[in-house]
């Protein structure tokens, strides 16, 4: 019988399951689809670790400082210290699992990534997520065969089983048979970002619906910084979604420009001479937005100066992808790019040990608000998922109450999914309110529109959850009266350290959403 139930089988879920298995603890790994279909396989550019293999005197301290600064000091410094100091160990572990990272003559090669002055990003061409996932899936299989990890593919999270601020399991539905089961045990949520809140408008998968986050929020689990949404500077529109053009394109020498009098104007390099095109994503996305607003036209990614060796050895997958979708060859053509929703820094609120406000309920990976503060650095997402998975499993081992109850099949009616029409309506409201540039007037208008929508008819369980989540996101953005990282308010364009606090969104038992601010923990001594 499983004692720990993990929701989600992407990088965070797999990492947690392996850590538990290494300690002899069994778990149920629950996901609607197999790990090969998880959003983690879409990660491209790489994973950060100050391995210092490129002769640049990089240190874990540098990685720590860059991550905190990149997130504009909204992240928990103790959590970030743990993350960055353990990053080299995580990448070495992946190497041992057989991840064929690009290599120098003797060691793992690192590339430049945004917001970091030193080469720190380990990679496997431009399909790093997929290649890491393959190795990790094999490792999980080893423990599956030994019986410690039991996979439940095609199983879907319905809701938490809770009592008095404690979680004792989850209700799960088999999507193939419709059968509902109450799984009893401690629960770790690794359910990914809230992409489904913005259908077709993000670089993510259709599987990351945001329903898990919306449901647990409704059940009383608090969210942190839900207003912090990352717009990736370089995405292209393809049928049905935004497609990512990896930051590695700029890390390897790609440059952003607009055309002025038939000349290329490299606006980032002029304004930010030191990091240029590799400023943190929030800065680049905002500059792109403003330069388009000022001059009109498109922003282009100029990769025409990249060498043939770079294309062949480091970015071959990216070139194929661009040629496939745009019928343009980045070796010779400028690529029109736009900002697109890519990552959710906010989410389920946890402490540095990945505990939520419910006993026996933990969360890791993109579904949490951990590690990235107001803006995530490229290369830190896979690290956050892998390390977060491991850290949460270690916390579970130390603190969870291991329940002994058997799983129980239940006969309850299946909740109706949110209607696509409503999802689109909510998405439009959120897109209007939570763009790259925000202000009070628009946020109030969109909150009003959401209220009108909420009062239009009676909604199903999932629909109500989504409406409440949307309200939490908008109200968090309204209450944060400053500009920080991905949250830019034209009416409060400066950073205000009175708001250097975590936005906390809570939903009470009468479905009222409350927003408050919690101080960031003080940093303890160095590790």
């Amino acid at each position, binding site marked *: 019988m499983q004692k720990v139930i993990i929701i989600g089988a992407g990088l965070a879920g797999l990492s947690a399951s392996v850590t538990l298995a290494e300690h002899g603890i069994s778990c149920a790994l629950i996901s609607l689809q197999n790990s090969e279909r998880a959003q983690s396989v*879409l990660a491209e550019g790489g994973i950060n670790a100050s391995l210092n293999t490129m002769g640049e005197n990089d240190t874990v301290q540098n990685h720590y400082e860059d991550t905190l600064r990149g997130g504009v000091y909204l992240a928990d410094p103790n959590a970030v210290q743990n993350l960055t100091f353990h990053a080299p160990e995580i990448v070495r572990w992946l190497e041992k699992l057989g991840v064929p990272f690009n290599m120098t003559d003797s060691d793992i090669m690192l590339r430049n990534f945004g917001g970091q002055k030193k080469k720190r990003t380990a990679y496997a061409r431009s399909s790093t997520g997929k290649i890491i996932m393959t190795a990790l899936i094999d490792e999980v299989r080893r423990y599956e065969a030994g019986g410690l990890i039991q996979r439940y593919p095609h199983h879907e999270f319905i809701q938490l089983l809770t009592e008095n601020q404690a979680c004792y399991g989850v209700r799960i539905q088999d999507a193939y048979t419709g059968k509902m089961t109450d799984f009893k045990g401690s629960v770790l949520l690794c359910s990914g970002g809230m992409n489904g809140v913005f259908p077709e408008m993000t670089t993510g*998968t*259709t599987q990351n619906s945001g329903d898990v986050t919306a449901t647990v929020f409704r059940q009383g689990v608090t969210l942190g910084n839900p207003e912090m949404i990352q717009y990736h500077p370089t995405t292209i529109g*393809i049928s049905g*979604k935004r*497609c990512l053009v990896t930051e590695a394109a700029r890390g390897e020498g790609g440059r952003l420009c607009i055309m002025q009098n038939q000349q290329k104007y490299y606006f980032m390099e002029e304004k930010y001479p030191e990091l240029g095109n590799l400023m943190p994503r929030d800065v680049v996305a905002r500059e792109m937005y403003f330069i388009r607003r000022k001059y009109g036209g498109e922003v282009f990614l100029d990769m025409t100066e990249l060498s043939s060796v770079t294309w062949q050895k480091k970015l071959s997958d990216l070139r194929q992808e661009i040629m496939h979708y745009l019928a343009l060859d980045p070796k010779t053509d400028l690529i029109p790019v736009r900002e697109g929703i890519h990552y959710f820094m906010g989410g389920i609120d946890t402490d540095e040990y990945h505990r939520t406000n419910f006993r026996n309920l933990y969360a890791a990976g993109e579904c949490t608000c951990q590690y990235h503060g107001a803006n995530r650095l490229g290369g830190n997402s896979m690290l956050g998922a892998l390390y977060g998975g491991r850290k949460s499993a270690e916390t579970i081992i130390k603190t969870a109450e291991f329940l002994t109850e058997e799983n129980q099949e239940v006969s309850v009616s299946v909740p109706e999914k949110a209607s696509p029409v409503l999802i689109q309506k909510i998405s439009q409201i959120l897109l209007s309110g939570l763009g790259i540039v925000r202000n009070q007037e628009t946020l109030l208008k969109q909150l009003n529109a959401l209220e009108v929508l909420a009062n239009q008819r009676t909604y199903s369980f999932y629909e109500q959850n989504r409406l409440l989540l949307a309200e939490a996101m908008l109200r968090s953005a309204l209450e944060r009266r400053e500009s920080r990282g991905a949250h830019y308010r034209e009416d409060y364009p400066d950073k205000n350290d009175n708001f250097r606090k975590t936005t906390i969104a809570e939903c009470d038992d009468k479905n009222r959403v409350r927003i408050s601010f919690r101080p960031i923990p003080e940093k303890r001594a160095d590790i």
Partner: protein
Amino acid sequence: MITLKLEILRRKHPEDVPHWESYDYQTEDETANIAVALTELNQKIENPVRWECSCLQKKCGACAMVIQNRPRLACDTPLKEFSKAGTVRIEPLRKFPVVADLIVDRSILFQNLETMKVWFAEEAKTKGSQMAYEASRCLQCGCCLEICPNFYAGGTFSGMSATLPTARLLTALPESQKKELCRAYRKYIYEGCGKSLACRNVCPAGIEIDKLLVNSNAVAVWKRKLKHET
């Protein structure tokens, strides 16, 4: 404007008698693909077509199905290919048990890998191997099995979807697993593969299957390593 008749083989549950249903579909998006069409269709019809999808950019293999008699990913199949004919036939993969409509149960893919013990039992020495990279790209979508003349569910031959993950291990064959893994490779792959290489033509990831197969055969069957691989 693309105007198409989508003919979809439907069934409500595994025991249901399959039947074709036809839907008119129109879009102004000249780049639209089958995945987009199915998503939009489902927003309009009373009994949505059940199918699986995830990444929508041919990186996850979820939406593999048989489209006009060919196993493909719905997200990688542009509608304009069929606009001249005016109709496209969509059905589930045929070598796996059908769950409903276009959803099939592909668990045999993963069971085969477990049977063959596809994992590194010791520290991997794949350092920077381009072959390990190529082998790692397999989507486990099942298209290769659909087209394979030698694979059938429940048979001994595990097919190309098991060959590629095994090839990843064989690029850096661990000493402690040498005997067992080579034996499994010969039994479940080498002896069953008729080398038709039809899989190569349908692999949505465009994996260099021949190269990996040659290397794996060399290592597991002929006990030698190809010189060109690092």
